């Protein structure tokens, strides 16, 4: 067959197979000079001063602030206006009061209405001292109208005219708490019917000398980020109808008779007990047994059953019933059923262990082996657990074994036992002094006695001072040291001392003895200002110091052989290789010693000696084990550690019974009780000439006859009728119930009347005790009850009940913004600034499709702390950029002394590039009202070093 008789399709498929035969390539490594396609760039933009300016935007809506202000906010005073939208209340349950309907969840009456305000500052201290000047607090309220009220769109500085009918609503009932105060509002029908809203105006005008000058409260816009519950809220206290469902027993058993007598039969009538309606038939019970079983829930296995039983025969039981009068009109029948039946056989010694054949009741403690003994209580000779030990003459605070109820009535102050005591507990507790002499490390050995590490690398401790020891030595290498040379920068100020190390430091009365802490009143302070000063440590101070290693690579920080692919590394010839450090060159911030802390001799962050912390292995001197009060002579036993007041616990301390002294006869800590050791909890029955531990003479089965009787093989079989329905008022002679006569005991209901029920028990064999319950289906009663409740609400449905805003005058009314040479931000006064960057527009136009790097693209501002308008020394601020109608959150600025503020700006530039923001509009920088509205930030505008600068890092 000729080769080329193959069809075209065959060729096609063969060729396709070849396509997938092989394709294998390694990556090609290419020098960057060939790529010539650097994809990552930086472009810097300086602010265009002519087109950058601060201005006051009077279109701000202050009602959107998270905060409200009453009082002095600088040189002006602010009032708080609150509006309660009564229209939302009108349709709420609080205005649907109905005293007659008795329907579920209907409000019957309103007791009171309060409004709750929450403050950012503490207004009452722990001693209930009100910190604000309450006499200067004025609160007026009433229905009315403010024509121009609009919380969401009322311009800043708008005049708000108070409604004319407002009256003072502040009274003696105002309740202050640490950070809240509640104010009673005169709630009445008009709140539900008035077409006007209810307004509250809060003003606060304290004397200038008063420390508390301004109330700063949460507003109805406030959110913690998780919850809105801290907004101003209304607290309704009211009475409401609630539907109650009650289960009522249709009858009670008032009397019980066995063969016509009330002997040997007992019944439970207490309807609070789950055992109610149970009947016990037992002989020879103690007097008052019927009261006992009605006082607490007692089950048959808890009853000591008499040895005397009942012979075979027929027994008539009559139970007197008292049908519940309150429901008598509502019920016609009762369905009876007998359940919970137990019949105990008449057997005096079911286990056949009674004396003299057995060991029960023989008057002596019996044991077959260590695991098979009579039941004993391992409490020592005091027959008392540690908790109730009196600590005096081996006595007990109560008769624990015979009358344990007594123990439950003991008051806390009666107890000698105290496992939570901190004095004398052998451990170092908060409040106890830990002496430096005891801070020897886990080796328990002070430096002077340390003998160094042995061949196995373990620490050794000498009994006498190491003769080769010198001050500062640490033979066992266990000293805790974080900064051996003490050259770490700690921003403690020019004095080099942090507050706690300064003379006369007191955390409450003198926090800054040297008066060098940076803050609003001391902006030249050097401690905590975030800037290194002479006198502070040089390691880790973020700048080069003499003695530190550096690479003399020039200001670009890149060595010469790496500069070939660095476009901006050309002009560093003056600084590269000049044998002097220049800013930008890499260095090791080791401090002048040229060694990082972790390489300094002695550096040991894991050391335990001298770490000022008690470590296991260290001996805590008993004289310092004074408890959390730190007072060993307090004469107070309440903090004494005591877990064995009678000192009778077995601790395996050996024959000398002293754990501190090691016994030479190997009896100490041998895991077994030895003569001479104590008794409680030694897991064996103890006795001596003076007495013994308590035991039950029940034989080695550890059960008395009464409980032996309740074992399953000692119970009799029975037959009982099914449910019997009785119509109240009839005399019911119950017909034959077809009992199983083969059973030992047969229950039959003979007759039922409105007053009693007769039950016949036919015992085919003798028995010792019977338990059964006369059960029935209870009556379900539904009733309406008036209950008191209160709601704290800030909205009904999705409607905010409260609107609020602060009203104040313009602080910058006379400020010359045109001549202002700074950039300023002030939320309260609507001060913002516009920033224009030279060539930014051209850059964006000329570089379409670039990608702005998020990590490095930064807008840098510099804070002007010294400016008289600057007022931002605490807390935080949210900075936003507004371009046209678009707002972009930039960052949260923390107040500190570092004047450089770096703001991530990539997303704004990227949005401009993507066309989401129109750069032809000005970039306006502004604050929001989330944090303290009074903060004012001033930034350098035109300055040789501190002018704003934008650096855009991007990929092409």
């Amino acid at each position, binding site marked *: 067959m000729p080769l080329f008789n193959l069809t075209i399709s065959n060729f096609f498929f063969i060729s396709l197979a*070849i396509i997938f035969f092989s394709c294998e390539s390694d*990556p090609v490594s*290419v020098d960057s000079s060939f790529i010539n396609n650097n994809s990552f760039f930086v472009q810097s933009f300086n602010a265009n001063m002519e087109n950058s300016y601060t201005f006051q935007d009077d279109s701000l809506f202050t009602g959107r602030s998270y905060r409200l202000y009453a009082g002095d906010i600088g040189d002006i005073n602010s009032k708080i206006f609150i509006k309660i939208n009564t229209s939302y209340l009108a349709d709420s349950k609080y205005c649907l009061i109905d005293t007659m309907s008795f329907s579920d969840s209907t409000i019957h009456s309103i007791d009171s209405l309060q409004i709750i305000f929450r403050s950012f500052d503490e207004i009452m201290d722990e001693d209930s001292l009100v910190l604000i000047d309450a006499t200067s607090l004025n609160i007026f309220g009433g229905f009315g109208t403010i024509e121009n009220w609009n919380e969401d769109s009322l311009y800043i500085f708008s005049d708000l005219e108070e409604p004319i009918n407002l009256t003072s609503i502040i009274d003696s009932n105002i309740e202050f708490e640490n950070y809240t105060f509640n104010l009673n509002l005169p709630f009445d029908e008009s709140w539900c019917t008035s077409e006007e809203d209810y307004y509250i105006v809060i003003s606060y005008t304290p004397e200038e000398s008063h420390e508390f000058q301004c109330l700063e409260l949460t507003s109805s816009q406030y959110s913690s980020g998780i919850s809105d519950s801290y907004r101003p809220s209304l607290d309704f206290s009211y009475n409401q109808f609630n539907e109650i469902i009650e289960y009522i027993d249709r009858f009670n058993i008032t009397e019980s008779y066995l063969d016509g007598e009330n002997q040997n039969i007992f019944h439970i009538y207490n309807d609070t007990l789950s055992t109610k309606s149970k009947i016990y038939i037992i002989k020879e019970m103690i007097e008052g047994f019927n009261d006992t079983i009605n006082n607490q829930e007692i089950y048959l296995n808890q009853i000591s059953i008499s040895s005397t039983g009942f012979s075979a025969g027929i027994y008539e039981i009559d139970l007197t019933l008292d049908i519940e009068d309150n429901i008598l009109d509502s019920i016609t029948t009762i369905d009876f059923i007998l359940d919970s039946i137990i019949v105990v056989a008449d057997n005096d010694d079911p286990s056949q262990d009674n004396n003299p054949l057995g060991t029960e009741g023989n008057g002596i403690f019996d044991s077959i082996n260590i695991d098979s003994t009579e039941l004993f209580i391992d409490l020592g000779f005091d027959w008392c657990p540690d908790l109730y030990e009196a600590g005096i003459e081996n006595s007990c605070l109560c008769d624990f074994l015979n009358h344990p109820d007594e123990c439950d009535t003991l008051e806390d102050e009666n107890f000698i036992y105290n496992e939570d005591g901190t004095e004398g507990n052998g451990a170092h507790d908060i409040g106890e002094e830990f002496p430096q002499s005891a801070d020897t490390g886990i080796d328990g050995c002070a430096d002077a006695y340390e003998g160094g590490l042995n061949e196995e690398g373990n620490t050794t401790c000498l009994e006498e001072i190491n003769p080769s020891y010198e001050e500062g030595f640490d033979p066992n290498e266990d000293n805790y040291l974080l900064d051996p040379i003490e050259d770490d920068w700690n921003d403690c100020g020019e004095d080099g001392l942090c507050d706690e190390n300064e003379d006369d430091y007191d955390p409450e009365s003198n926090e800054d003895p040297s008066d060098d802490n940076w803050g609003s009143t001391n902006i030249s302070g050097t401690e905590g200002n975030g800037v290194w000063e002479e006198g502070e440590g040089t390691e880790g101070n973020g700048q080069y110091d003499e003695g530190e290693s550096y690479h003399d690579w020039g200001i670009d920080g890149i060595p010469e052989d790496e500069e070939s*692919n*660095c476009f*901006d590394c050309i002009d560093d010839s003056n600084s590269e290789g000049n044998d002097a450090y220049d800013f*930008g060159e*890499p260095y090791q911030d080791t401090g002048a010693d040229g060694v990082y802390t972790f390489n300094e001799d002695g550096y040991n962050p894991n050391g335990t000696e001298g770490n000022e912390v008690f470590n296991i292995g260290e001996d805590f001197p008993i004289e310092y084990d004074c408890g959390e009060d730190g007072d060993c002579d307090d004469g107070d036993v309440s903090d004494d550690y005591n877990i064995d007041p009678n000192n009778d616990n077995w601790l395996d301390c050996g024959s000398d019974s002293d754990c501190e002294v090691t016994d030479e006869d190997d009896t100490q800590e041998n895991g077994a009780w030895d003569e001479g050791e104590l008794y409680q909890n030694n897991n064996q029955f103890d006795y001596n000439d003076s007495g013994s531990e308590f035991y039950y003479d029940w034989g080695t089965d550890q059960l008395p006859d009464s409980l032996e009787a309740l074992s399953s093989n000692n119970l009799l079989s029975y037959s009982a009728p099914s449910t019997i329905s009785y119509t109240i008022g009839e005399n019911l002679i119950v017909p034959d119930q077809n009992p199983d006569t083969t059973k030992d005991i047969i229950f039959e209901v003979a007759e039922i009347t409105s007053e009693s029920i007769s039950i016949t028990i036919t015992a085919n064999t003798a028995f010792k005790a019977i338990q059964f319950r006369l059960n029935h289906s209870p009556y379900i009663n539904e009733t309406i009850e008036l209950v008191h409740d209160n709601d704290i609400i800030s909205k009904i449905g999705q409607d905010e009940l409260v609107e609020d805003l602060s009203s104040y005058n313009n602080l910058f009314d006379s400020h010359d913004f045109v001549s202002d040479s700074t950039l300023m931000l002030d939320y309260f006064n609507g001060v913002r600034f516009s920033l224009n960057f030279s060539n930014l527009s051209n850059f964006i136009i000329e570089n379409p499709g670039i990608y702005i*790097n998020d990590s*490095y693209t930064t807008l840098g501002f510099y804070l002007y702390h010294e400016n008289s308008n600057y007022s931002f020394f605490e807390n935080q601020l949210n900075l936003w950029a507004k371009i046209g109608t678009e707002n972009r959150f930039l960052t949260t600025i923390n107040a500190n002394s570092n004047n450089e503020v770096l703001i991530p700006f990539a997303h704004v530039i990227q949005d401009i590039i993507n066309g989401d923001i129109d750069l032809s509009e000005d970039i306006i920088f502004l604050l929001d009202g989330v944090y303290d509205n009074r903060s004012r930030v001033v930034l350098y505008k035109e300055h040789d070093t501190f002018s704003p600068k934008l650096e855009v890092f991007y990929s092409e």
Partner: protein
Amino acid sequence: MRAYIHIIILFSFIYSSSLEFYGTGERYNEIEAMGMALGNTYFFSDYTNGLNSTSIATLWRSDLTRITFSSKFSSNIGGINDKDINISFFSFSFPITASKAISFGLAPYTRSNIKVIEENGFSMGQNSSEFIDLPLNSRSEYKIFGGISNLYASFSMAVGKNNSFGFKLNNFFGNQMKMNKIIISTFDASFNDSTDNTFIEQDSTSKIILNQFSGYSMQFDWNTKVGNHQFGASLVAMGPININYRKYYNIYSISDPLERYYLIDYSYLYIESGNDLLSYDPDYSDQIDDNVKINTFVSNIFNRINDYRFGYNYNNNNIGFIVEFHRTDLFKNYSLGVDDISILNNNQPSTTSYHLGLYKRYDNSKAKFFNSINLRAGGYYKKYFFEEGVGSDLALTLGIGFGINNYSNLIDFGFRIGQINSIMFENENYIKGNLSINIGEKWFSRSRRKQ
């Protein structure tokens, strides 16, 4: 759209060399085995029917309907591992009159399939920014594949007894995907060994560029035969090349930002083809149109000559030689010169090449099935004119061909071994091979053929 992309990917797994770094990839000139064996010549054939399936002016010489496949393999000798086997050419031609033929074909025009790792990257000194604490370094990793394909239609005719004319309309289309991961690191100086500085990766940006090409060119060929002498000339005028340009940034494997954050997985999506991008909107796109319109192309046709070739063939019965001169890529398209269109923004090099081919044909007129065995040898010298300097490609070629079934079927093998010298890369030794199968059938056979 999907089918379009599939076609391009199918033809994208083709040999890679340093030439793939230029333009839209390596320019494909040798696509058929006979030409390869004859020193990468273009115009002439050593078969008695004078048919060369890539030389359009010769196509009228066959009175059969013909289908041609070429499959090629390539491998580097030494250097980096780089092997490929795949289809390089397909054409379908048929006669319409006794002296005219039409053909259609599909062949790669430029191709690239490379992974590139930038060795050193670019540094940014600390003094370039007021806000960064350490010098930065950016380094890129690239994966580039795809290129331009050529779907053409040609017309071939005899002009008088000794002249042939060919016209070819090349329709260019194709996708090229460029994936670029830009790794940004801080430059941490070592104080233990000043030469052992380290780059600590801080950030990365993924960039994907998808270029979709469309365009055309016109080719005119002329062959003249005078006794034992043949002369050939060819020139190509480039029409506009338009590009749909799309740029994508940071397409993550996990698209949901929150899920990405919680799983701490910021890996980028692995893109295997343009299909994977269909569900994403580009971050930037542009339609780059060449600066020539169709109506002005004809009037400027001589100003836009891209390639031209001249050739001479001496044939004395069954032995002969060929010499040719080729010049390619004279004209630079505006659109291909826009940033991000050419690979790494390197322009396609111009080339000037000199070709020599020798052949000896052994005819076997006695055998009905087996008509001839053609032994071929040759070589060429090509100069590459890169922007950064001049490179060269010197190669020797060998091959063999078989005419079968009265020359209705042709089987050709061609091999080439050579060395590329360029300024930016190490010398590259290579071997390439080509298998072409030309099948003739009588579907549209002309009456002049003797049965």
